[in-house]
């Protein structure tokens, strides 16, 4: 899954080399996507993420460069295969459901005119199956205006996948949803991408999207890719302030066991109850440990010099102080382990506790401060 430029070009499903200058903005990007792979394109606003998607989808033309899909050239100097002939789908922030068509007819549109080219009647039948898959059984006759924002995005996801794209481009698909709805849609996208085996590129500035959805991360800054690799690797060694800000969270990539996340070094992180349920296998004991990730803020980590005793469910472990660095919210304490955990304290607290590099400390995090995701 870790296709990087150069080495795996032969096996790449999608390969793009794009240059574009507009006003003072220059874009120069090379990227590849392996079959079945999900790539997260991270970057701050204005870094050119959406432009990259437009260029891949054929909705914009680069000054120079090429886009090839499965060996076929889609974009090249003097050649631009139209969006409708590319088999590259697009799901954006807004669902953009056709307002005059019912949910069923919206999905049927993709089945009739996408890869499947079904006739009207079978398209309607298949459309209902798709709506079922995204949890909207029985709502096929609803017009988009009668559906909630989350429901509309579910229809939009079903429609985008029903078109049978070779590659699906996701442009911050959770950005317009409220905080309650976003996790469900994110999980749904993860499941559906995996079930359909659809290769995808997701543009986001939310680290959780990358953690949950992507196999690999590429970081776009001022129009160029400045970092690329697995999500954990990119976050462990931030190459620019944007990634550092993203990495301002503690990210534990491990496995789900009994509703908790187990780190590579064996530490067990209990998580908030809502997420613990999602980590538990559908049939207890039947599954191999599933990949999962725990995320918590450095400010949630409490530092003690002696082993603490608490009544509330907490994660407690001991570690050595590896580094003491100035941070945005005070002093950042890097502590040993795989992965390292960062704690954030006030300078006064560091002095009070008499902390220095090499000190042994006890760390604790409330389970309710830890969110978790299946990967």
């Amino acid at each position, binding site marked *: 899954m870790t296709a990087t430029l150069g080495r795996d070009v032969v096996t790449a499903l999608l390969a793009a080399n794009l240059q574009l200058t507009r006003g003072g903005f220059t874009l120069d990007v090379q990227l590849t996507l392996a079959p079945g792979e999900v790539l997260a394109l991270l970057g701050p606003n204005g870094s050119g993420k959406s432009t990259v998607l437009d260029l891949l989808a054929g909705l914009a033309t680069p000054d120079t460069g090429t886009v090839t899909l499965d060996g076929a050239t889609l974009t090249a100097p003097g050649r631009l295969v139209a969006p409708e002939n590319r088999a590259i789908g697009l799901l954006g922030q807004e669902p953009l459901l*056709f307002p005059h068509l019912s949910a069923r007819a919206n999905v049927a549109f993709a089945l009739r005119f*996408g*890869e499947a080219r079904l006739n009207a009647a079978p398209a309607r039948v298949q459309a209902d199956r798709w709506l079922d898959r995204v949890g909207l059984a029985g709502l096929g006759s609803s017009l988009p205006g009668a559906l909630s924002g989350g429901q509309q995005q579910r229809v939009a996801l079903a429609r985008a996948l029903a078109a049978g794209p070779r590659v699906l481009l996701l442009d911050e698909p959770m950005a317009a949803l409220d905080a309650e709805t976003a996790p469900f849609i994110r999980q749904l996208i993860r499941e559906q991408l995996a079930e359909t085996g659809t290769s995808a590129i997701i543009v986001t500035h939310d680290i959780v999207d990358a953690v949950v959805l992507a196999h690999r991360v590429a970081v776009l800054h001022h129009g160029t890719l400045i970092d690329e690799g697995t999500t954990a690797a990119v976050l462990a060694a931030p190459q620019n302030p944007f990634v550092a800000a993203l990495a301002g969270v503690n990210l534990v990539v491990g496995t789900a066991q009994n509703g908790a996340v187990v780190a590579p070094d064996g530490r067990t992180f209990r998580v908030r109850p809502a997420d613990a349920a999602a980590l538990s296998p559908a049939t207890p004991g039947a599954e191999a440990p599933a990949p999962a990730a725990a995320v918590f803020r450095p400010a949630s980590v409490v530092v003690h010099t002696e082993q603490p005793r608490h009544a509330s469910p907490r994660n407690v472990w001991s570690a050595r102080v590896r580094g003491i660095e100035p941070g945005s919210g005070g002093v950042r304490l890097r502590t040993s382990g795989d992965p390292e955990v960062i704690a954030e304290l006030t300078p006064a607290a560091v002095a009070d506790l008499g902390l220095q590099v090499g000190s042994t400390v006890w760390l604790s995090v409330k389970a309710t401060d830890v969110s978790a995701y299946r990967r």
Partner: protein
Amino acid sequence: MIPRLLYLPASIGLALLVLPLAGLLLKVDWAALPALLLSPEALQPLGLSLVTASVSTLLCLLLGVPLAVVIARSKPRAAGLLRALVTVPLVLPPLVGGIALLSLLGRGGVLGNTLELAGLRIPFTTAAVVIAQTFVALPFLVIAVEGALRTAGIRYERVAATLGAGRGTVFARITLPLVGPGLLAGTVLSFARALGEFGATALFAGNQVGVTRTMPLAIYTAFNGSGVTTDQAVALSLLLIAVAVIILVLVGTRRASVLS
């Protein structure tokens, strides 16, 4: 929240629009009306008006919708120029339009001479009526549809393209339905304008019974007293008003059923 002072001019404005029609109704000789309306002098212009206005409206749709699409999807500067060109006939007095049509297609006109050599004479024919009506009605349709297209934007069309739909499919199944209300409004306006067209028709097509005498020309002729009476003019006017009201009611219910 309406300032009270506004009610006075609002009432006067409404009266100005409604009272003349009420006055017309008072002038109607209801006893003689059936005979007047069923006379050939009334039915023939009505038939000609309905046929020519329908053909003109169809032409407006066939030519105007593509023109609206081209304008709406052009770059701003080109769109502005095209929009100005389309608007000229709208602000032009129809009489001037008639003279312009004669200058192009009439005897001695640039195209008229060529057509005459080919054995075609357009002025003072039913075709001239249709051309004159289309000339004055087309801008209404183009402007209504173009506005609707710009409001709808291209986002839905782009999504449809990424789903695999070709341009023709997108136009027929996405673009046109999205501008449906604007299209309907433009069609009604065009038909009404074509039905009421007088000035350009009078100059370019003339006033020949059964060939170019549409309702407005018949009313004018009746009012001038050449052959028919003023009563006839009033009766014909009533007929034209009735046709207009019927169209509005039909469109209104159609719209309501589409929305519900």
